[in-house]
């Protein structure tokens, strides 16, 4: 397994070197927390020169913000292989510390980046063949016969009950997106990427995170995810570059955390500054879970099988 991981990392670095994408490193420890309500930072503390009273630091949930600052400074196409950390996540497919490949391509939109991700993954998983492309709306239509862009919470709950998700009647979920997550994770994801890998793309605007929103009826987030064997492997965006829109989204995320009584870390002023002054070039970026990719390459069923030491004996 150690050799399989080393071989995978070597192939990935070779792929990007051939394409002239620069490998970079950015800090794992940040002075700022990620406001995304779906993610929680692990927190730690530095004491020493420059911080006699101690300075709270946050282990990043992904290298996205500092990599975008590099892009805004004109670094060109970059990739990073690093550890990322997420509090509250442990299970068959989750370890609170995991390995991530993240890369950014100035001038690409999400479709161009999907093509490059497919090229990388077809080299790493040669027996898989061509990828399928499916919009979020098409997936819900095909597997559940409903329109995710128009259904309300009551309709989605009813669908969950019809699909045999026991306990759906008692679930108290915060809104339409959580109900969509329930249906996606229980009824659709398990069927995706068997055997042909799937790009799921064009998400509801309410799930844009850091993706551009394409106006229309309905407006759609230019975001994609990759599924293989029912496992979510990657998440990519045609990146939002508008500083004002980014500021509004951060504020909305912070308001949502506050409403849920969750921890609020200090907001990151530097990403907004970089977006405003850079500017951030039009670009697309994607983060890919390397432990899950290694699981697929080796046929492992649980993430702890591909880690030298998982949480329980770390």
């Amino acid at each position, binding site marked *: 397994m150690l050799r399989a991981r080393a071989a995978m990392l070597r192939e990935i670095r070779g792929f990007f070197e051939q394409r002239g994408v620069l490998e970079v490193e950015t800090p794992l420890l940040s002075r700022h927390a990620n406001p995304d309500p779906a993610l929680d930072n692990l927190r730690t503390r530095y004491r020493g020169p420059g911080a006699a009273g101690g300075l709270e630091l946050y282990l990043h949930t992904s290298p996205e913000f500092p990599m975008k600052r590099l892009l805004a400074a004109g670094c060109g196409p970059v990739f990073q292989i690093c550890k990322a950390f997420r509090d509250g996540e442990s299970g068959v497919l989750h370890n609170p510390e995991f390995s991530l490949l993240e890369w950014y391509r100035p001038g690409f939109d999400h479709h161009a980046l999907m093509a490059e991700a497919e090229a990388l993954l077809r080299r790493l998983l040669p027996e898989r063949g061509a990828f399928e492309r499916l919009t979020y709306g098409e997936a819900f239509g095909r597997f559940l016969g409903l329109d995710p862009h128009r259904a309300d919470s009551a309709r989605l709950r009813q669908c969950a009950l019809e699909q045999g998700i026991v306990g759906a009647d008692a679930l108290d979920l915060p809104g339409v997106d*959580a109900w969509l997550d329930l249906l996606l994770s*229980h009824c659709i*994801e398990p069927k995706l990427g068997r055997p042909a890998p799937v790009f799921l793309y064009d998400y509801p605007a309410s799930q844009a995170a850091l993706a551009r929103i394409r106006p229309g009826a309905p407006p759609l987030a230019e975001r994609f995810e990759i599924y293989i064997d029912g496992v979510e492997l990657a998440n990519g965006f045609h990146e939002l570059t508008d500083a004002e829109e980014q500021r509004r989204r951060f504020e909305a995320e912070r308001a949502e955390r506050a409403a849920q009584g969750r921890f609020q870390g200090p907001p990151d002023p530097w990403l907004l500054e970089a977006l405003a002054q850079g500017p951030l070039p039009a670009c697309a970026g994607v983060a890919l879970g390397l432990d899950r990719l290694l699981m697929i390459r080796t046929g492992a069923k649980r993430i702890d099988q591909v880690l030298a030491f998982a949480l329980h004996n770390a």
Partner: protein
Amino acid sequence: MATYSTNEFKGGLKIMLDGDPCSIIENEFVKPGKGQAFNRVKIRNLKTGRVIERTFKSGESMEAADVLELNLQYLYTDGEFWHFMNSESFEQYTADAAAMGESVKWLRDQDLCTVTLWNGAPLIVEPPNFVVLGITETDPGLKGDTSGGGGKPATLETGAVVRVPLFVQTGDAIKVDTRSGEYVSRASKDD
């Protein structure tokens, strides 16, 4: 009231669900990278024995079930109830037919059983994995038969009927696996 959050869920944990005590068999954490986290849990209803799957929102809490497993000695039955005793505290417990289930047909006085108590009352009674019982009736077998193949029904002193090899006779004692209901070997009555 004690509660457990989904972060405490693991195999063997006892929680209350829809008014019934349940035991968690398997707990799966499900979370889209950018979305709501869920726990998909396999649960055994301890009253009915049925296994169901149930989805919780991560972070939810469930009431703990006051469930305890004890080794109790079977004393006797009065026809309606079965009486057990804790041989350390001498405390006595009364189980009804629902709690006894199939166990009834394996028990002799003094057998040590695993009894699951819910709110202090027996909910499930499990006999020892192996019991030695005398045969009260079986057809005479053929001479020279070995333990392989064929077999015949034999009625045991508790009323249970098991298949035994042809050489086993009325009056013999046999060892039975109560989980499968199958004959294991001939035994001495003292086993």
